[in-house]
């Protein structure tokens, strides 16, 4: 992979140029919610949100040390959008505009594999997703720190990206190493070649050291949480089908659907019809499998009428359905669901509890 170097003082000038061609989004500091580590581990407290480059003062733009609040999926399938209208009306699929998103992390890039499988695969590709996917420039960056809820490395997802991006930025000294990961990325660095210097071997090995140090700190933190290895999670979740854990953990759930909405890999949506003046619109909006009516059918029958069934379903979807279909667990360890949950339902803790129960059951045999 080709790696270049971009000096910090040239960064904004590069963004100015890029924003003439792309609608650029990048991270700014945001008011967030910090969780204390149950094990006393000191973790970062700031939060980041993605904003339009043209809409924020330059001094607010920062390199995000870890993932943003926003899941990356919102750039491909927004929370709510019109997807069809009156019969015979010309099919206008939005998404022609070129968009560049900075501040993407490896957890987000991993999740895109899940979203791509759903929206580009299946019985037919989703044209709304497909067009936006084609026209987006993904600029990822190494994680320099982590939130208390981050657990990517427990699922063998590294806090830095090696694939899936167009460009990747690793802060180093007074600038960034820039990896070129795709043809789209290649075009950008070619077009703006004057901004980039070749990277030196010394820079690359300095980055490697930083990455290893960061990964070690993250793993020290994760060791406290006893999260089962990703290879055994599908089996643990299936074995725990009749476990009391689902009912116990669900006691505090208020069915807000926040875990689903902020989840990087959750993709479920609801199609609904409405009249808007003379136009009959079909609207797609994000749906949540924690909602009571998620599987309700006409007449009122509901295969998941009990709350615990819906919690279990969320885990079965992530750790049974996806592994069975594409050999990937549909969880990137971003921890957004942990952070957003007012009921303190913690996916790390649920998996650890299921693992404990499974190993106790194995011990009995």
């Amino acid at each position, binding site marked *: 992979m080709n790696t270049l170097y971009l000096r910090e003082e040239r960064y904004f000038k590069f963004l100015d140029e890029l924003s003439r061609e792309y609608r650029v989004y990048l991270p700014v500091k945001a008011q967030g919610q910090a969780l204390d580590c149950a094990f006393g581990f000191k973790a970062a407290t700031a939060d980041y949100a993605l904003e339009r480059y043209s809409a924020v003062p330059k001094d607010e733009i920062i390199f995000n040390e870890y993932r943003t609040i926003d899941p990356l999926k919102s750039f491909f399938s927004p929370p709510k959008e019109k*997807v*069809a*209208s*009156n*019969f*015979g009306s010309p*099919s206008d*699929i939005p998404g022609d505009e070129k968009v560049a998103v900075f501040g993407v992390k490896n957890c987000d890039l991993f999740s895109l594999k899940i979203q791509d499988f*759903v*929206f580009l*695969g*299946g*019985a*037919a*590709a*989703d*044209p709304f997703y*497909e*067009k936006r996917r084609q026209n987006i420039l993904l600029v990822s960056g190494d994680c320099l720190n982590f939130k208390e809820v981050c657990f990517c490395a427990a699922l063998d997802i590294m806090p830095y990206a090696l694939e899936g991006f167009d460009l990747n930025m690793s802060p180093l000294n007074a600038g960034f190493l820039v990896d070129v990961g795709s043809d789209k990325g290649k075009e950008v660095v070619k077009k703006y070649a004057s901004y980039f210097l070749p990277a030196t071997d010394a820079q690359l090995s300095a980055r490697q050291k930083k990455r290893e140090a960061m990964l070690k700190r993250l793993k020290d933190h994760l060791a406290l949480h006893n999260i089962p290895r990703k290879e055994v999670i599908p089996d643990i979740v299936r074995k725990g*089908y009749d476990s009391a854990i689902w009912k116990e953990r669900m006691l505090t759930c208020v069915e807000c659907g926040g875990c689903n909405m902020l989840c990087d890999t959750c*993709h*479920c*949506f*609801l*199609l*609904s*019809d*409405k*009249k808007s003046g003379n136009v*009959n*619109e*079909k609207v*797609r909006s994000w*749906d949540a*499998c924690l909602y009571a009516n*998620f*599987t*309700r*059918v*006409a*007449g*009122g029958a509901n*295969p998941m009428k009990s709350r615990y069934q819906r919690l279990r*379903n969320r885990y079965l*979807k992530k750790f*049974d*359905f996806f592994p*069975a*279909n594409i050999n990937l667990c549909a969880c990137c360890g971003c921890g957004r669901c942990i952070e957003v949950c007012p009921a303190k339902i913690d996916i790390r803790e649920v998996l650890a509890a299921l693992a404990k129960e499974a190993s106790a059951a194995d011990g009995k045999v």
Partner: protein
Amino acid sequence: MENIYQPIEGIIEEVITESPTIKTFVVRPQEKFEFRTGQFIELSLPGIGEAPFTPSSDPNIKDKFDVTIMNAGKITSILHNTASNTSVGIRGPYGMGYPLDTFKGKDILIVGGGVGLAPLRSLLLALFGRMPDFGKVIMRYGARSPGDIIYKSLIPQWQQKKNFDMVVTVDRGDETWKGNVGLVTTLLKGLPINMDNAVSIVCGPPIMMKFATLKLLEIGFKPRDIYLSMEKNMSCGLGKCGHCRIGKYYICKDGPVFTYEQLKDLMDIWD
């Protein structure tokens, strides 16, 4: 790019009352539309809502199709109050349907329950169009009461067909009923079928499908030879919206017809 969410227009040409709660709607699509028997469609009332149904007509008829609909929920109750000449939306067809070619040379046992006869009518009509391809075709149909039997006027016509044997039963009879009384599973014993070269097809309410499947296994059908029409709240029809998951499958994309072999190790399939 093709917009997979955009319905085409269909006009309801005729509404036939089948029972107090069931009506058949004859729909003429305004654009080219074809389906294979067992596939389903999303039928919408523009600006109001959309729901999945399986056409109940002969798939070889290309200019129009029937859907037989029970008044069960929001969309279906509005549909039941809809007159001819109304415009509806059609998306699809979706799913895999019945693999008729793999039934060639085999006996076919069809077990239906209640309004489950609707998709089975489409299957029957498709089979009738190519009877020499198959061995015996046997149908056993059960309804809760005589009033719940659909296609009452058609059943005697079907029973005249050569090489086709159809018996109807009701859970509870009434003063006019002179036929069989009892669950449809009571009609599955001693059938003149060669189990080693036969398939069975089940469609009906979940509880009926469950007990019919158990009975079919008991009389010697192998799980791979039992075809089940599964239903959940299929919405997008394309394996994306996530509502109709069952184990590792989406009913809309991988079904709605599955063999019991595919489903037998999954949890809670009859819910």
